[in-house]
């Protein structure tokens, strides 16, 4: 049996591999040093790489991401941690106005090779200001690459590509997946940005998912398999670059599409996927593209309430059955 690794440990492993490979890679963020990160995703880095390359910061999100940008413009490859993705709002100027625009508005003079890592998503009862899935915020900004892995091996492989990218990358780690286990990444594992994975092959319906909605989609597909339905689950892995070629090819085989996203339906990334399929794959479809997304409300605290808002296996299973019956 292959070695198993947690998603949480994969983050530290992926960072350590890149820091060993390239002395220009440095990390900064709140509590990432001696504390090893509030989610324990940077454990061991301070001991191995020392305080010059693993730096604790004050609670100053603008300084964290702004300093990462200034360092990235001048020969360093910083990996900045924003503890909860909700806090991206505190430094959104840098993600919306500074980092993604610098190369363009200088006519290509400036390169900003940085990664902003952040713990994203709900399901853990952290309430409305620590639970949001905000990958759609980043998708609204041209000039950012967006990664959201679902497995430990993908965490390592996509982190390698993100750190090596000369473009800025927002790397969403899902809080609900930190404790999950999967196959460990082999040495030198690199997953290119913008290549979706077929997490489960199937022939009857396509399910497009991202990060924590991948295991939900897989569980739903498993339930349907008992009834003889073969659902194909695509793990997008990245929102930019967006691998629509894989999605369209799958829809060409199955003729049905369900998108499962944790961000709100209102402005969620599934709307972009659905619009491209409607535009470029209209003739492939035997049913309307549908989305299971979060309700358009702030995230509630209690489990019983949160389950009403974000995607669950039961909701996905029901949506799949409805689409198959269409």
């Amino acid at each position, binding site marked *: 049996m292959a070695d198993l690794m947690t998603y949480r440990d994969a983050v530290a492993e992926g960072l350590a591999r890149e820091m060993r490979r390239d002395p*220009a890679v*440095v990390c900064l963020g709140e509590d990432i040093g001696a504390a090893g990160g509030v989610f324990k995703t940077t454990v061991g880095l301070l001991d191995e790489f020392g305080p*010059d*390359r693993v*730096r604790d*910061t*004050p609670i*100053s999100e*603008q*300084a964290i*991401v*702004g*300093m*990462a*940008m*200034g*360092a*990235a*413009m*001048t*020969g*360093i490859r*910083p990996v900045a941690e924003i503890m909860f993705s909700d806090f991206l709002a505190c430094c959104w*100027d*840098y993600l919306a*106005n*500074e980092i993604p625009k*610098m*190369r*363009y*508005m*200088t*006519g*290509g*003079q*400036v*390169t900003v*090779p940085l990664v902003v890592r952040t713990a994203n998503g709900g399901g853990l009862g952290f309430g409305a200001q620590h639970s949001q899935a905000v990958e759609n915020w980043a998708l609204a900004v*041209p*000039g950012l690459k967006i990664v959201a892995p679902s497995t430990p091996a993908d965490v390592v492989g996509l982190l390698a590509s993100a750190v090596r*990218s*000369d*473009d800025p990358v927002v790397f969403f780690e899902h809080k609900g997946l930190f404790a999950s286990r999967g196959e460990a990444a082999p040495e030198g594992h690199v997953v290119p940005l*913008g290549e979706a994975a077929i997490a489960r092959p199937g022939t009857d319906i396509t399910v497009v998912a991202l990060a924590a909605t991948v295991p939900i989609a897989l569980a739903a597909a498993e339930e349907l398999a008992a009834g003889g339905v073969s659902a194909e689950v695509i793990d997008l892995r990245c929102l*930019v*670059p*967006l*691998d*629509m*070629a*894989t999605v369209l090819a799958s829809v060409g085989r199955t003729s049905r599409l369900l998108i499962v996203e944790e961000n709100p339906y209102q402005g969620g990334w599934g709307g972009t996927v659905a619009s*491209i399929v409607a535009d470029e794959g209209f003739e492939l479809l035997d049913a309307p593209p549908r989305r299971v997304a979060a309700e358009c409300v702030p995230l509630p605290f209690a489990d019983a309430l949160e389950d009403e808002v974000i995607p669950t296996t039961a909701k996905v299973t029901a949506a799949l059955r409805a689409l198959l019956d269409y």
Partner: protein
Amino acid sequence: MTATMEAPELLRCYEQMAVIRGTEKAVHDLFLAGLVKGTTHLAAGHEAVAVGASAALRPDDYVFATYRGHHHAMARGATPAECLAELMSKATGVCKAKGGSMHLTKASAGMLGSYAIVGAHLPLAAGAAWSARLRGTSQVAVAFFGDGATNIGAFHEALNLASVWSLPVLFICENNLYMEYTPIGSVTAADHPAADRAASYRLPSEVIDGNDVVVVADAVGRAAERARAGHGPTVLEAQTYRHFGHSRTDPASYRPADEVAEWLSRDPLDVASRRLAEAGVAQADISAAADRAAETVAAAVAQAKAADGADPAQALTDVWADGGHQWRT
């Protein structure tokens, strides 16, 4: 301490300030002629801050400026022609006409951008200083900003962290007394909006005459020396004054006439000219420098006017490092 500068260097600074002044006036005229669009935030009156600082910095030091940044771009080595071409939407613009007046950048000269979100670039300068330390280069980074930037969070976050990490960064405020249309004193709980805040972050500060290029060069030189020696950041507050309004549409009628007259009597070009005369430089040599500056500006205007317009194909380049803009397969 009496600030000093050798006469040949002072004459060079005088000519460079005259080029910047002439270029800013040309921008004003070109705007009225319909050849510059959007808006402009002219730096006429602020020339000594940029030219004095640049004279004291190393060529490989980093400069980050604001949307009122034409003077910094030119002081660091952007040519008047490529700046004017940028403002006139020409293909030869310093940013290929993709940035415009508020984003002049000359990365090859260490001029790493003009930023139009107030205060955003202070953390960037701190980051560049951190990078210099990590790479062991002894470079310093400089953030120039207006008085208005001292009331935004990024200013305070940058000063705090730069101090804690003792970074080789200079924070230089160009205090021109007005936050856009509002007197800075009426919205700030400090007499000197930048310098008075420095002590809160255990940083040294100086309030200096920003209209005297020699004073600026001297203060920046000392601060840069401290930074390179590992003694951390310095906050400088250079007192200066705009000769135009905040932006193109602002006639600055809110400024009292006697205040304007007083500041115009301390025009940085006149201050430098008087210093040159005191240093024994002949009036004919000072006039010759002014004439050369006027010729430089006239040639730059002609060159920018004659350049081709921006290539529409450039709209879809330079998003990604591969030069393109593809976001999906």
